[in-house]
Each structure stands twice: as structure tokens, then as C-alpha cells.
């Protein structure tokens, strides 16, 4: 009656039936699978089974087990969230989910431009759409995330200029700076440009001091980590005058209303496409882009794959393929540029769907709506007793710093109290940015209604 005695046949392993196993062993004239492992020395072979938890063999048992774990999480659908700091809550259009959950894209990998034509075209379209947003002619197949893109852009600039001094704006995500430092350690000398405490922007005077003819690159985020929109033109001009490459990291969702860095002199532009249709996924929705003008010397510095368009033998038909493949480590191992591997193609396809769905007007409206909400939130928050917005007069996109020093409470205390009211408050900056005192980074996007902002203010009033 019970089947426990019988060997388990696994639904994911067709040939786990005893019949199939025996058939194949017979076909290859082997007594047991051990024969295939003959090259593994006996003392390296594991005795017995791995020490793993008892399996949930049934799909239902597995589902229930994992769901129970996930139910321990409280998500941003459960709570109202004002967290930003590099990962953003935006509306994900349903077409993005529909396309990126298509089995054909989910389970594809490294097929050729013929059998996987659709993937190549979708990626070429992604780079083309990004190209319009950025007003640049070259955009890479996505790298891991904005951190990676930034780090690579700095190395690219150094190779391009043949110099090794990099000036990096301090108004940057501290983790990103750590990543860059590790990534560039062998070939780049990193200098951090301090933040102007008054404006929350890069300190222009310091930049001038640091900048010299040995400088390969001036790198800054715009909007920067503190949400401030930098005067990119002024900074890029300084860099260009000094013969350094201006490299700008940008939030692509801002580009319906903010100028693309190419327009104010940037030569390398990077960023993270997570805002363009990716769910946050606890930080799993990131992918990085690198863009430049179509200057061959710069193009040859890309470590990433670049997909180009070309006619086929049939008039009117397009095909796609790798541009200048010999740059890559796939082709030249350690003599290629940096390295390349599986990164985040599905998010590139998705960002393409996002931009095609949004169109020029959608991008303009979403940018403007975010500016407006930040403006309103700044005004409302700074009305609360003891609450200050230190860079109130600066232009902000999406986020800004809120200071609580005058309330006599720590951000940690305030955030805990808000969490009990179902609100994920702004990210606590006090550890990484002691100079800002008890401050938090609050983020407002198109998902926030006036009522959400008012709810936050009301809750803060009760908490403070």
C-alpha cells in the first residue's frame, strides 16, 4: 500500500527510473555509475550522503515550506515605504512582467543569433532605447549592476587616457565607493572629492584643487546619493578642460526631465536600470549600463558585449551579432578588457520593454511627477517641529536628506516607531554620514500619493 520502500523517481530527472538507468548502463557497457568516477581518487570520494535537511519531495510540500519562510517577510506591498538609496520602488508595468516571465526568455542562454534571434533583437532594442534616453550611440549589454558599471567606467577612462588618477565624488553610495576601490586597486589611484556640506553636492573648490593633467577621470553621480541634482555642466567642463574623462552615473528614470549627461559634456555615462521595470527583489533587480559616444578608441575599452545590427543576405532583413568581440576576455582571456560573463540580460530586455511602453511622454511625466512629489514632501516634512531638510534649496530628484537632530531622537528610534505604524521610513544615514548628524534619506516616487506623504507626516508628528 505504501510506496516508501520504492526508489524515488524524481520529476526533474526523467532517467531516474530504474529502467532508464539500467538501459543506459547496458548501452555503455558499465556495471554501475561508479565506473564513470574512476578518475576520482577513492579518498576524495564522499562516503555516504551529504548532510542536508530532509527534502520536501512533493511540490506542494515544498511550496508550503518556502511560503512559510517568505511569510516571515513584510514587504513594501504590506507597508508604506520611503526607502531609496540605490534601490527604488516604482510601478512595474504589467507588460514588463509578462515579457520577462516568458519561458522562452527565462530559460534561454547562449544560443546563436539565428536560433536566438529574438533575444539578440530584444537586447539590441534595449541598447537602442537607452541610446535615445542617453543621447549616446554606444550602450553595452547589461553588466551586474550600477556599481559594476561605475567601476568599469573608471577603469575604461584610465585605459582610454593612459592615466591612473581618478577623482570620485564623495556624494556617492558608500558601498559603491568600496566596490570601486576594490575593483580598481591594481591600476587606479582613487581620490575622493569631498561633499559640500551646505549644498549636499560635490565641492567644486576641492575638485579644482585635485584636478590636474594626470587626472584620468572625474566621476560623479547625478542626482547624487543624497538626492541632489548636481550642476553637471560645471563639473564636466572642469574635467574636460583638464583633459580628464567626465564619467557620470545617472538615474535613468530621471531623464525625461533632466538633461542626459552627454548634453553637458559627459563622455562616459553609467547607471542602474533597476528603476526601469524591475521589482526590487531585496536588491536582486539590478543591472548596470555603460554608454559612450561612438568613438572607436572608447568602444574598444568596453569589457562587455556589444550587440550590433547588420543586414542579412535577404534584403530588408536584419540580424544581430557581437561588435568588436576581440576586445573581450571571452576571446582574449587575460588580454581582453577586464572580464565578462553572465550578468543581467533579462533585466536589459525588461528595461527595453519598459522604455518602449513608457515612450517619450511617459518618461517626461514620470520625471516631472517625481520632482513634484519631492518638492511637496520637502515642504511638508520641514514644517514638522524639529525636522529639517538641510539642502532644502537645492534641486532634488527622488530623494533628499531629512535631519532630526532638533527632535532629540535618533533616526533609529524614529524609524522603529514608524515601522510599528506600518511605515518603512527613510534610510538611516547616521552611521555612514556622521557629519549629517541624525539624518535619514527619504525617497518619493510616482508610487506615492499625496495621502501617502501626508500619512508619513502625520505618523512622524505622533512619533516625535
Amino acid at each position, binding site marked *: 500500500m505504501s510506496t516508501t520502500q520504492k526508489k524515488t523517481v*524524481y520529476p*526533474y530527472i*526523467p532517467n531516474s527510473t530504474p529502467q*532508464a538507468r539500467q538501459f*543506459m548502463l547496458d548501452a555503455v557497457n558499465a556495471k554501475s555509475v561508479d565506473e*564513470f568516477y*574512476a*578518475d576520482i581518487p577513492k579518498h*576524495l*570520494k564522499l562516503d555516504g550522503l*551529504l548532510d542536508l535537511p*530532509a527534502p520536501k519531495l512533493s511540490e506542494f510540500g515544498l511550496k508550503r515550506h*518556502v511560503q512559510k519562510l*517568505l511569510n516571515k*517577510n513584510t*514587504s*513594501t506591498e504590506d507597508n508604506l*515605504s520611503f526607502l531609496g538609496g540605490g*534601490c527604488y520602488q516604482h510601478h512595474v508595468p504589467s507588460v514588463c512582467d509578462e*515579457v520577462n516571465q516568458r519561458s*522562452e*526568455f*527565462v530559460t*534561454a*542562454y547562449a544560443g546563436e543569433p539565428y536560433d536566438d*534571434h529574438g533575444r539578440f533583437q*530584444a537586447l539590441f532594442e534595449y541598447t537602442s532605447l537607452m541610446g*535615445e534616453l542617453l543621447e549616446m550611440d554606444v*550602450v553595452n*549589454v547589461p553588466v551586474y549592476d550600477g556599481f559594476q558599471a561605475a567601476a568599469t567606467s573608471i577603469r575604461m577612462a584610465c585605459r582610454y587616457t593612459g592615466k591612473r588618477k581618478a577623482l570620485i565624488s564623495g556624494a556617492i553610495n558608500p*558601498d*559603491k565607493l568600496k566596490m570601486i576601490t576594490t575593483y580598481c*586597486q*591594481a591600476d587606479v589611484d582613487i581620490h575622493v572629492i569631498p561633499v559640500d556640506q551646505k549644498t549636499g553636492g560635490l565641492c567644486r573648490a576641492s575638485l579644482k584643487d585635485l584636478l590636474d593633467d594626470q587626472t584620468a577621470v572625474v566621476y560623479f553621480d547625478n542626482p547624487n546619493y543624497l538626492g541632489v*541634482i548636481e*550642476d553637471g555642466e560645471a563639473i564636466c567642463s572642469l574635467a574636460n578642460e583638464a583633459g580628464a574623462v567626465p564619467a557620470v552615473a545617472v538615474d535613468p528614470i530621471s531623464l525625461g526631465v533632466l*538633461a542626459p549627461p552627454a*548634453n553637458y559634456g559627459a563622455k562616459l555615462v553609467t547607471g542602474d536600470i533597476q528603476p526601469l521595470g524591475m521589482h526590487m*527583489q*531585496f*536588491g*536582486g*533587480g*539590478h543591472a548596470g549600463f555603460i554608454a559612450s559616444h561612438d568613438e572607436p578608441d572608447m568602444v574598444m575599452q568596453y569589457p562587455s558585449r556589444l550587440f*550590433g*545590427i547588420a*543586414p*542579412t543576405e535577404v534584403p530588408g*532583413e*536584419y540580424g544581430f*551579432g*557581437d561588435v568588436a568581440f576581440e576586445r573581450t*576576455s571571452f576571446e582574449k582571456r587575460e588580454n581582453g578588457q577586464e572580464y565578462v560573463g*553572465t550578468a543581467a540580460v533579462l533585466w536589459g*530586455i525588461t528595461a527595453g520593454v519598459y522604455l518602449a*511602453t513608457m515612450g517619450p511622454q511617459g518618461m517626461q511625466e514620470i520625471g*516631472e*511627477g517625481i520632482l513634484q512629489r519631492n518638492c*511637496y514632501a520637502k515642504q511638508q516634512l520641514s514644517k514638522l517641529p524639529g525636522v529639517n531638510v538641510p539642502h532644502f534649496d537645492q534641486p532634488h530628484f527622488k530623494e533628499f536628506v531629512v535631519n532630526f537632530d532638533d527632535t532629540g531622537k535618533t533616526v533609529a528610534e524614529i524609524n522603529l516607531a514608524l515601522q510599528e505604524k506600518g511605515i518603512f521610513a527613510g534610510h538611516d544615514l547616521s552611521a555612514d554620514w556622521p557629519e549629517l548628524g541624525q539624518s535619514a534619506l527619504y525617497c518619493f516616487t*510616482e508610487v506615492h500619493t499625496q495621502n501617502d506623504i501626508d500619512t508619513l507626516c502625520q505618523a512622524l508628528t505622533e512619533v516625535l
Partner: protein
Amino acid sequence: WDEPVVMELSAEGERGILIPEAEQAVRDAAANVYDTLPSSMRRKNAPALPEIAQNRVLRHYLRLSQENLGADLQVDIGQGTCTMKYNPKINDQLAYSPKMAELHPLQDESTVQGILEVMHEFEKIIKAISGMDKASFQPRGGSAAIYANAAVIKKYHDAQGNTHKDEIITTMLSHPSDAACAKLFGFKIITLYPDDDGYPDIEALKAAVSERTAGLMITNPEDTGIFNPRIQEFVDIVHEVGGLCAYDQANANGLLGITRARDAGFDLCQFNLHKTFSTPHNSGGPAVGVQAVTKELVPYLPGPLVENDNGRYYLNDDLPHGIGKVAAFYGAASVVLRAYAWVMNLGAEGLKEVAEIAVLNNNYLMGEVLKIKGSSAPWAKGKRRIEQVRYSWEELHRDTGIHSEQLGLRMADYGLHYWTSHHPYLLPEPATFEPTESYSITDMDEYVRTLKAVTEEAYSNPAIVRSAPHNCPIHKIRHDNFDDPERWAVTWRAYCRKHADSSNG
């Protein structure tokens, strides 16, 4: 489908989606929002994105999806080394749950105990499988984990004051990233070639090691599917000169529960969750490369690590000697979730079944492929392989003039993938097949039958193979557009600029 490039679908004024407008009071408050903005920061012209109604966008991408061959749709054993296995749909479903998809990485730890527990539990699983003491899921891909391993090796030697150690040894048949990532840290790369039997050459290793050796970064089995039986000797030789050994476990699918990296003495290793642990390849990521190390190397890991304090999970970023960050936040947590679910469904017995059937399938397939005229499996003659085989069509090429790559294009006509191999070709006319545990005898027989038919065409009607593809969404691409800076076009705007007159649009 004969689907245009998306830019060509634009129709003036069409909308794909509408945006939530701010309320009147918000708009009023922000009436002067542009005034503080430097005028050069204001975008002057709207981006030239296409204007397309929603169903047309959708139709476009659905058609493109149908012009793509996912592993779900065919017998995907032609992409050897890629470990194309079944990606269970239940794991995707779980990952799409808002309790996973809608988590912000900076939420208070008390609100993400579930996913932290998953990561912590999966780390235990990786520890059991590798024998290592600690694992990180930060790297967003296999190569990123190789990168992280190289960084740890560098950091370790720096911490020991081993400034003289500036060489990394790898093999020609290890993944190119092993060489490239080490190079990033200023290491000089020494590459060992296979010996006559296809094994990494131990004599060459002995000649290569020295005080300068910082480490060994090596795959085993290599993409040939041949297991290096002297792997422990390799490790010992490098250890003797004070080097660290990193095991690139991209080809671990035949070894789960069979042998562990630590047992052979390795100090570091890495797994690709999108290969061995069945998470989807996603057309090339998102992915996770697991980095696992011995106790001694834990201080050098990237942060944060997931720790458990009396049942409360937290993120430990207090790693003053660590390599810092290798990715934004914590890598791709939903990929870890899928891999966790996969292992929890199989258990220890199931993982061993995975390995054994992957290997049995591979050897069965090899038997069938080698029956085809013109094929061979050079190196280690007569020996069994682990989970894949590097074949050669040298004889077929000699007989017919057809190259391996041309066979691949013809296979595409039959809706099947076929991959030659990573360059450079150490073997002439290579091809690499890896059936994994996910394909049945019938599936493999179908693949071989098609392969046989294509090779027979090569003998009987080489022209049809040479002019392939015939039955794909598109015909042969004119490759001269890809390497000439005057003609290449990585975006539509570049294409229109450079090829204004020849444009189809």
C-alpha cells in the same frame, strides 16, 4: 514573424501606459520646481523613444520571445558547459511572490527574517556540498565569483605581507574569467596547457610554481568532461609554495554529493547557481555565483554576511579586513531562493541522483555521438567522461570541408542548439554537448538523430549545410558590419546615422 525593430513601430501620439499624476495640491506646491534647477540640467528635447500603444508593444515582444529557443522549448544539450537543466516552475512562482519581489534591501532586518533565513539555510547547504566553512552569495554571476575569489587571494596575500606573490596559475581549458579576473588585480597569468591525454599538465605546473605563485585558479573537470585525477597533487604543489587554490566549480553538476572541493584541499571555490543549481539562465543573467572559503579566509570575504544570533538573522558588515563590496546590496536574492527550493526538493539522495544521472546521460550520449561518422572524442581515449564531452569533427571536416560551426547553423534549422566551444580551439572543429540530468533517453536519441542527419547532409549535400541557416527567423548575417568602426552600429540611432541610405525603416 517578420518583426521590425521596435523604433519602427512608433506612431505619433500613441501611449503604452499612463502615469499616476500628482494631485492638484502637490502640483501647486511644486509650481516652481524647475526654478532651482540649473538650466543646463533641464532636458530640452524629449528622448526620441518610440510611441506605441500597449498591445503593440506586447505583441512585438511576444513575437520576439517566440523567435527564441529557451531550454523549456527544446532538447538543450547542444550548449555544452552551460549546464542547461530544467528550471522548475514552482521555484519561479515562489520567487515572483510579493514577499520576495517587493522587498527593499534596506528594510529593517526584523522585516526580512524569511529571506535571511533562506540565505542562511542555503549557505549551510553550500557548506555541506563544498566542505567549506563560509559562503557568500554577493557575486551576481559565475565570473563575478571568480573575481571575488581573485580579490580574496589578493587581499589575503596583502594581509600576510606577501608582496612578492604576483602570479596566478590557471589552465587553458578553465573558463577565460579565471585568467581575466586574476589579471584585474595585477597578477601575472601563467596558463597551463593540457598534456597529450587532455589532463592539465602536472609537469608544467611544477615548472611554473615558485615563491611568486599567489594561487591556482582551476576548473575540474574542465570543459572536456575529463576529471583530473591528480587534482590533490596540484593543490599540494601550490600550497607548498604558499599559494592559495581556488576551485572553479562551474562544472560541478556531475560531482554533487560525490566529491567536495575542500576534500581535495582547495581554499576557495565557486558555484554557478544558474548552472548546477537549476536557476534559470534568464537569457544571460541575473544569476548568482556562490563564493565559498575555508575558515582562514573568512575575514577577507565581501560583506555583508548573513549570520544567526539565537534565531535572529542579521547582516554582518563588520568585516574590516574584507574585500568590501563586490555588488550592490546582497546580490540576487531571488536566485538564491530558487536554488534553495531546488535543493530542498531533492535532498541529499536527490542531489546524488542528479550527479549520477548527469554523468550516466553524458556517457550514454557520448556512445551514441561517437557512432556518427566523422566524430571523435580526443584525449583520454577510451576513458569515461564526467558531465560533458568535448568532441571533434576533424574527420568530418577532412572528408567534407564542413566546419563545426556550419554544422551548428544547420542544427539551428532543426530547432536545436549546438555550441562549438570557447575560443581558442585547442581541438580542431570542436563541439561540446552536455545532456545534464534533465533529458530523457528519448530526448538524447532525438538530438543524436538530428545531428546524424546533419552530418549525413554534410557528406551527401554539403552545400545545404554550408548555406545554412534556411529555416531560422533570419538568414545569414553579413558579419562585416561588426568589426569595422565605420559600419558597426550598437544602437538604432548609430545605425540610422551610418546607414541612412540603406536603412529599411
